[in-house]
Each structure stands twice: as structure tokens, then as C-alpha cells.
């Protein structure tokens, strides 16, 4: 499934999407960057509350395609700038981690 398809299926807000056609095959839910570093699969969407520029850096390292910030938390300028630099997509949702993880799970199963 492409990132765009996932965005449409789950009703996600695109804050910054450099390439909507990248494949997404997995998701990972975490707020601990060390944990993301250790376990987050590539071609994935990272579901997190961490609206922080370091989250972008970690996603670049593990090859995650997008960061999905929950609770529609504000994206700080420096995080957006980092995402632009690294080519990582930034998405938002008003849902919490549990709800949106379930949605992603249902969409990616198809």
C-alpha cells in the first residue's frame, strides 16, 4: 500500500509529504526513541506522541517512511525543518495511539 492510500484509508492529516507513492508495509507505535531505534521496521509509519526533531533523526536511521503524531499535537518548526531535510513524511491525527494503531492495523492487513 502506498502512503497516500494509507492516509486516505485512515483519514490522516498530511503535514508534510515529500513522496505520497512510497510503499508502506508496517507500522510501529512508540514514544521511546531507543525502542524505535531497536525495533521499528523500515517502510513503516511510526505512531508517536513525540513531536520532536530527534524523532525525525531516528526515523531516518531505521528507514521509516513517515511519522504520525497523535493527539494532533503541534509540530514544532525545527521538527518540520528536519523532516524536509531528511525527506520523512509528517502526519497527524486527533486519535490516540491505541485507536490509530488499530486503524492502521486494519488498513495494512488488506
Amino acid at each position, binding site marked *: 500500500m502506498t502512503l497516500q492510500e494509507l492516509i486516505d484509508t485512515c483519514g490522516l492529516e498530511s503535514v508534510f509529504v515529500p513522496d505520497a507513492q512510497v510503499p508502506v508495509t508496517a507500522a510501529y507505535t512508540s514514544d521511546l526513541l531507543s525502542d524505535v531505534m531497536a525495533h521499528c521496521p523500515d517502510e513503516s509509519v511510526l505512531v508517536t506522541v513525540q513531536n520532536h526533531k*530527534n524523532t525525525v533523526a531516528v526515523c531516518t536511521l531505521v528507514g521509516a517512511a513517515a511519522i504520525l503524531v497523535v493527539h494532533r499535537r*503541534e509540530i514544532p518548526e525545527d521538527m518540520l525543518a528536519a523532516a524536509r531535510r531528511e525527506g520523512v513524511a509528517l502526519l497527524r491525527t486527533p486519535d490516540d495511539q491505541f485507536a490509530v494503531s488499530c486503524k492502521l492495523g486494519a488498513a495494512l492487513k488488506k
Partner: protein
Amino acid sequence: MSEAPQTPDASDAKNEPEPAAVNEPLVLLELIQRLKVRDVMTAKLVTVSRKDTLREAQELMKQKKISGIPVEENGRFFGLVSVDDIIRALGGGYIDDACSRHMTTQLVVLEDDMPLSFALRYFDRYHYGRFPVLNRDRRLVGIICQRDINRALLVELANELNRLETSFGQTPGLDGAYSIYVLREYPICKYDFENAGKAANQIKKVLQEKQFPPKVIRRIAVAAYELEINLCVHSDGGVLSWQVSNGRAEIIARDAGPGIEDVEWACRDGTSTANEWIRSLGFGAGMGLVNVKRVSDEFEITSKKGSGTTVKCVINIDLPVAT
């Protein structure tokens, strides 16, 4: 020789705002209002008369281990001889002169039925080591020094604590729970993650035992927890105190540093100075103060870079409608 000593200007004192002690625990505020100067002062006086020599005064001071002696005759107060006066006399070679010639007469005195808070304010303002105490008839009835105050407060606090402990042991009905007075203080150390959150857990337990409404307990506990974690993560260590009285819960987090540069910024959602290490412990997402604000009816933060931060929040406890 100048005239009789000055009475403290009570009217002036009354016009002043209350002592800058709004942040003091309520129990202390109550005590310093309730206690009178006469409850605290030393009434067993060591005095000299006007014709006694400074050397005799010095001898008495040495014997009784005191630093000032009132000059008094039959209850009438004339002045005070202090250690400073003695030192000057020794230097000036007039130690054998009569006290009346060199005693300090420009004195501020207190009245015995003033509340202790007055005395505290005068110690603060005049930096004297002691104040003579006169009664309404202008007769000398005692002397008060800071040590007297410390001792009296300690004794009274111990009594108060006993009273609290006793009332704590009982299980009051719902009504009793709201009027009950609870005060606790917890020291919080920097980066002490082993204990961070313990105080809030205890607060919750106590409130549950007191059968407070669950919604109120949750709000108080959330505020306490966030403030406790804040002290642990951001301050050099501080004190978390909470008290419940008369339908109000008040939680105060006070630290001695390092202070917050931009308080408004710190209170915004998602802003934090926490490092990656703190983040890896599940804190520092910049939601703490926002959370405290959210659950509080009153929220107040004062801070200065380089000095301390005090956060105070109040949660009103509405009595549930009786069914």
C-alpha cells in the same frame, strides 16, 4: 537621657499588607496569628537597676548566658544594656559607670497581647536581637528573642502534629473528611527516579481512605504527580507539600533552583528542556505543567532564572449533593 522607649507603631503595622508569607503552610500562618507575644516571651526576667554598673550587668549576662539585660525598677522600664554596650564600655574604659549613663534608650518594644506575627515582622524589620515586652500599663513583663520564637513554634507544631495524627487515625464520615485538615511535606531529590511519584501515590491513598470523591482524588493526584516529577527532573531538588482543608486542596512544589527563564514558554504544551535521557524515561514531553493547569481550579507559577520556582495549584472540593 532620652524619653521612655517607643511603643511599636501598631497602626502602621496594621496598614501593612500581611507578611509575605502567603506561601507558608497554613498551619504556621495560623500559629503565628494565634500565639501572642506573651505566650512566647521569656517572663522570668533578669534585670538591673539604673544605678547598677555595666560591670555588674556584664557579670549577669555571663552567668545567665544572655545577650541583653533590661534596666528596670519596680516594673518601670528604662532601657536595655546589650553586649554591644558592654563591648563599647570595655573599649572606652567606663565599664564601672552606672547603667543609666550608657544603656540604650531608643528602643522599639512590643506589647504582650500582640500576635506573634507582629514580633516576627519587627525582627525582620529592625534586625535587633531582642525586644522588651510591655503590658498595657507600660510595665515591663518580659523579653523576646528569636530563640524564644523558634522554641515556641517547635513546641506548638509538635502539638499540632499530634492533633493531626490523632484525627488521622480515625475514619471520619464524609462530612468530616472535608473539614479535616491534612498537611504533608515531601522532600524530592534531583533525578531520584527510584522514588519519583511515591509522594503522589501516598497522597492518593490518603484521600481514598478519607473517601473523597474519585474525580477529585484523581485531579489532586495528577497535579501532585506531575509536580513531583517536575521537581525530580528539572529542579535541583525541592519540596512537594499538599494540604486539604475546608473544601480546598492545595499543592505546592517549591525548589531552590535553577529557575525558569521563560515561564510562559515552559507552560506551553509540548515545550520542554528535557534531554534525551529524561525522554527515554517517559518524561519531558512538555506536558507536565499543562496537565497540572488542566486539573487545577487555580494555578500559579513564579520563577526567576538563577533562583527558585514555586508552583501552586488549588483544587476545589465540591461536596457531593446528599442523596
